[in-house]
């Protein structure tokens, strides 16, 4: 039940309430736990509530790290 998904805030609808885009659909998301979240931010959503705002810099860094590791094994390309 701790399954949670990343999604982007499409708009803020009211204080503490917003709409997020997730895999092509729009879902209602409660933003009360992440008052710092703004439109366009990526958040982690669990049971209808955003519990964390994602750090784009850290996300890019993780992707870079994995691309680097993959490059070390070119014969295993996906």
């Amino acid at each position, binding site marked *: 039940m*701790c399954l949670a998904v990343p999604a982007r805030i499409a708009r803020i609808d009211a204080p503490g309430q917003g709409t997020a885009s997730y895999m092509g659909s729009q879902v209602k998301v409660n933003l009360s736990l*992440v008052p710092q979240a703004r439109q366009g931010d990526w958040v982690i959503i*669990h049971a209808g509530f955003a519990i964390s705002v994602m750090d784009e810099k850290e996300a890019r860094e993780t992707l870079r790290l994995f691309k680097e590791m993959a490059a070390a094994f070119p*014969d295993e390309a*996906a």
Partner: protein
Amino acid sequence: MKPLRDPAALKALLGDIGERARRLKRKPRLMEVCGTHTMALFRSGLTPMLAEAGVEMVSGPGCPVCITPNAVHEAAIAVVTGVEGVTLAAFGDMTRVPTRLGSLQTAVPARGSRLRIVYSPEEALDEARRAPDRPVVFYGAGFETTIPAIAYTVRQAAAEGLKNYAVLPALWLVPPALRAILEAKDVAVDGFIYPGHVSAVIGAGPYEFVAGEFGVPGAIAGFEPGDILLAIRSILDQALAGRPGVALEYSRAIGRDGNPVARALMAEVCEPFDAGWRGLGVIPASGLRLRDAYAGFDAGRRFGLGAATADGGTDPAGCRCGDVLRGVVRPEGCRLFGTRCRPDAPVGPCMVSYEGACLIHFKFGPERRGRG
């Protein structure tokens, strides 16, 4: 996040892990605390690859459906069968746990009562808002990831004066359960993969005692295959260096301090008590209940259900869910596994939940391959 599933990157990480595992004095056994990690490990096929690299994985207690004792599930059944005109809202998995009274799915509701499956606690609150004359009880189960959302509905109901809303709490805290596992010494754990989304709320601090008092390393992980392997490599590095700590390998999603707003809300609405877990028994300050200021929203008090969580209770005859949750036996070690106990006719909750080790092993485990 496709690169985190890139076979070449995963192979590189598995190579690193194998090399480090060989340098340790004994084969490392790591516990993935969270059921969502168990699912990720099995679905991605990483479990056998890790075994080949010399790392043994064991599942922990991170399944709220599983660790909630049957006494609490029976209290939920008592609400919908014993109270007329009530709506009991629950997460889907919670409705299928078999008890002496059947499950919420098989129970016959009292006159005018009904069961409603929800995805978010807020859906239960919305139902109470729509029909102010109809009592709505939310069977609120979860770890620290979910507790703030449940606490939110209680505080909101109080603010709006919604007297028809109540919560039947089954709220569990992860760090005290880890302490119980370490103190029981039933299973030797050389490292913990900490749950990424519980940590999104509590941060890294509450795990420090695992490293400081017990000398066991750990890392907070995300849920992509690459996230989990990064965490395992970090744990083995800590073990080799003799410097156990709490590494954060999910920094794109969470910070070391977690979510202080969510924690403040939990603390405002709930207070800790000595709760009974299936398999682990009573653990000091390991559960949350509603504070006296919110007593009116506690379904147990409102409907006189008594102290449902007095102890961990007993498993159904022959069922070893409790031992599976402590990591003492693997699902395949239970005589009922795959024979009398299957996903379509579960005996215990570990075969019900999508985070339950038995269901995951049954669906994805090596014993099933070739058997269709």
